[in-house]
């Protein structure tokens, strides 16, 4: 790890100004960034810590929408998001306790790892990503592997999740990393069903629109019977072929529908 300056602002405004300089990098829970820095693959000159900012921390619900501060840890979401059990369940199974006690929802979404869990929840819920400057619909936020609509220095201050009637996340873990080899988030709303897939595609998290249409008409695993997922564009690696991942998308979607509550 190279030397760096560490800044711990006490407000979002201070964080924004601290990030304005050259070579500054926001630090969420550090679960990706710090290992990368230890390997000398990243060498920011200044880290601006967003942890502990009160205005960015906590879970609240009002009017059918759950709002989660960007600096809220996975462990807090697992404990406090009971009104949205599909989301709380997802958070409860990210990484291990050490990861869950440090990692944050804002950090995870800003990183947009193609195998991470939270992007599936945000996209599958049609969430709104709230930043220090604007609100971004999840459908516009995720832009491919490790790529998002965030501008340089823009901070995710909160995420607003419309609470569905029923939801579930099914993660088939990659045996080494225990990230999602394929993860599927299914959420049923009054106006339709959303299905978001993580881990599988070379394009990162994405919606499975054919399944959404079928499940909106008939919310049961059987509704998926006639559907298939193309292997084209799926990730192929040591842990699974493209065809295997495509197959798992359907299996995990069916299981999520069956388990949705």
């Amino acid at each position, binding site marked *: 790890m190279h030397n760096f300056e560490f800044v711990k602002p006490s407000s979002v405004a201070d964080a924004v100004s601290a990030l304005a300089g050259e070579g500054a990098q926001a630090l969420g829970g550090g679960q990706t960034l710090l290992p990368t820095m230890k390997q000398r693959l990243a060498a920011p000159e200044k880290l601006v810590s967003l942890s502990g900012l009160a205005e960015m921390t906590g879970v609240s619900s009002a009017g059918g929408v759950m709002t989660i501060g960007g600096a809220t840890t996975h462990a807090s979401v697992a404990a406090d998001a009971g009104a949205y059990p599909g989301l709380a369940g997802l958070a409860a199974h990210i990484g291990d306790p050490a990861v869950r006690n440090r990692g944050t929802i804002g950090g995870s979404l800003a990183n947009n790892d193609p195998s991470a869990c939270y992007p599936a929840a945000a996209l599958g819920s049609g969430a709104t990503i709230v930043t220090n400057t604007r609100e971004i619909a999840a459908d516009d936020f995720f832009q491919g592997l490790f790529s998002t609509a965030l501008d340089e220095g823009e901070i995710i201050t909160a995420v607003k999740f419309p609470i569905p009637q029923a939801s579930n996340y099914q993660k088939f873990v990659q045996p080494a990393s225990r990230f999602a080899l394929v993860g599927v988030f299914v959420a049923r709303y009054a106006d339709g069903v959303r299905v978001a897939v993580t881990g599988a595609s070379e394009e990162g998290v994405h919606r499975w629109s054919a399944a959404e249409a079928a499940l909106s008409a008939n919310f049961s695993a059987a509704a998926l019977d006639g559907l298939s997922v193309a292997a084209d564009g799926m990730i192929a690696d040591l842990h*699974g072929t493209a065809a295997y991942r495509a197959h798992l998308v359907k299996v995990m979607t069916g299981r999520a529908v069956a388990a949705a509550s």
Partner: protein
Amino acid sequence: MPDGGIGASSKRREDLRFLTGRGKYTDDINLQGQAHAHFVRSDVAHGRINSIDTSAASSMPGVIRIFTATDFEGVGGIPCGWQVTDRFGEVMQEPKHPILAEGKVRHVGDPICVVVADTLEQARDAADALVINITPLEAVLDMKAALAEGATKVHDDLNSNLCYDWGFVEENREAVAEAINNAHHVTTLELRNNRLVANPMEPRVAVGDYDFSTDEHTLYTTSQNPHVIRLLMGAFVLGIPEHKLRVVAPDVGGGFGAKIYHYAEEAFCTFAAKTIGRPVKWTSTRSEAFISDAHGRDHVTKIELALDENGKFLALRTDTHANMGAYLSTFAPSIPTWLHGTLMAGNYTTPLIYVNVKAVFTNTVPVDAYRGAGRPEATFQLERVVDKAAREMGIDPVELRRRNFITEFPYATPVAVEYDTGDYHATMDKLLQISDHAGFEGRAALSKANGKLRGFGIAHYIEACGIAPSNLVGQLGARAGLYESATVRVNATGSISVMTGSHSHGQGHETSFAQVVADMIGVDENQIDIVHGDTSKTPMGMGTYGSRSIAVGGSAMVRATEKIINKAKKIAAHLMEAAEGDIELKDGQFSVAGTDKSVAWGDVTLAAYVPHNYPLEDIEPGLEETAFYDPANFTYPSGAYGCEVEVDPATGKVTVVAFSAADDFGNIINPMIVEGQVHGGLAQGIGQAMIENCAYDDQGQLLSGSYMDYAMPRADDLPMFTVDHSSITPCTHNPLGVKGCGEAGAIGSPPALVNAVVDALQRAGHNVTHIDMPLSPDRVWAAMNS
């Protein structure tokens, strides 16, 4: 008799320091003025080094010196400890293994130069300023392609990439071929034994120190055998005589084979400490461990088993390509040969066996022993082909094994070893009982109702432990003896220090070895300390691997303790004015047979060191004895393993729902420690069979170079194990009747697991006869859907 002693599950005394963070590991050693070494390693699998420009790096802050191959021109290469003779009578091809790459790099991770600086960060910063120009060459990866005519050579100065072509027993080659050609049935299986990374929890560390005033070198290192390192490094690499070289292996956090070998980093730190006049420390990162610790396994095998119409085994032939990697690690040539071919009889009476092994150089990390070392590779292919044969012939796999079990001992196999004792029907009976084999069909029906496929797999293993008779291994090409040593030092007040040549790196020797001595003398085991891991303290010993410590190291300790007792009896006889032959030792009391006269252990030990009333004309004062024990034979632990799995047909995911192990380890010193050893072995064997996979891409880049891609088994990957060691046929040739238990779990479990998955799939109607390890979900799913 105090509590404890042989047979007691005494709690591991070393755990107090391990579990409270008070263990002292090599990385905890920081010497005054120590400098830090950072190894710059090849990022290509094969390449020619055109130039190394150190000028910019040398002037970076804190840099003391940058070492390259030219600094080691007067120094030997890393030696290989075993020379195999091929089937034509020629010795193996043995390339030089330089400390730092000379002219070429031969695997990703091959060290090119070393930056030594005041701090590790400075060394790393300077390394970034090095300019190393390498022309990449074609990477040699596939073993069969590596042997093709005209293939790119890993070592330009060798004739080819073939290390040796070994045949065993060569005289049987034709007879085996004839038996296979004429047999009623032949079962053939082609398989790969997957390459593994040992991944001990503690990475390797080396700290070199040099005192110019005494010309003494000290190396602190993470080793399973400090005397072996002293011998290899002192005599063959750096030319330092033993009395000027001390090697210390303090607490070591797991070895599994990977810390047996002499590594370049050890020689480097020892050498550099003298060169720069300061202690030099290197601590491996986990990423470095993946590309610099010796790997394990990596065999590609074709095996054929010939049977008569009743299922009697007539002949066995196996053809293996064994990956050596880019250089020969310390014991690498012996693993696919003498630790593999000699085990191909398994538990069976197969009269004719022929083993052919071609060892091949490739542009990969060197491969050497990993928990089991050759024996898992033998057991896996044998127990898989037996299972396949049973299915092909419609004979129950248990029954087919029973029809061929060896039942009379001693038994001389056709592959040059003699099993002294065993009872394979007993371990099989025990397995069927503890695994509730009879209830399997009911459980399978429940699984089916839940949409899962259940299978039961059996394996019966034999291994050769207690390595090894020195005269025998000398004939087989070992360049070292394989005895073990112990010094028993009784102190004046009766406490005892035992200096053993064995090394404990997780096995609990400090507890179980003390139990043995306590039992022999009849004193409390807390009166005894076990000292190990320092060449300045212990007699020359060969260390710990090959499940040898209690069988060989324990036997040396028994012999030394016998000498102590004999001398103590002489002293006791003098004190009680009785004949030596009438003295009995029981519960720490010497008594005169048939009388009520007695003296306590402490009275005798005090007399030995305060010899006022003492037979000085007959015996010396003091009470300290040393013994070296060289075993007469290997020991042959065996056992029956049963694995029960559920397969999710939708995803191919295998869940091990039950695993039972019925072992015969001979006599048991500490049952709790034995069970722990079996649990650990099973975890590693199941890890190999289910998830562990060291894979390279076609450029020789390691695909599984971190825990993001190399899957280690975790507690929730494993079921609660059912283990039993009540089937006991004591070893006939060592004083404790022990056989060793360290590797069994890793040897017997992979075939049991694969057999179970094949069973589950075949029961569900899938025509799947084999899946190569690891049986990851995608592979199982692909096999079901091909």
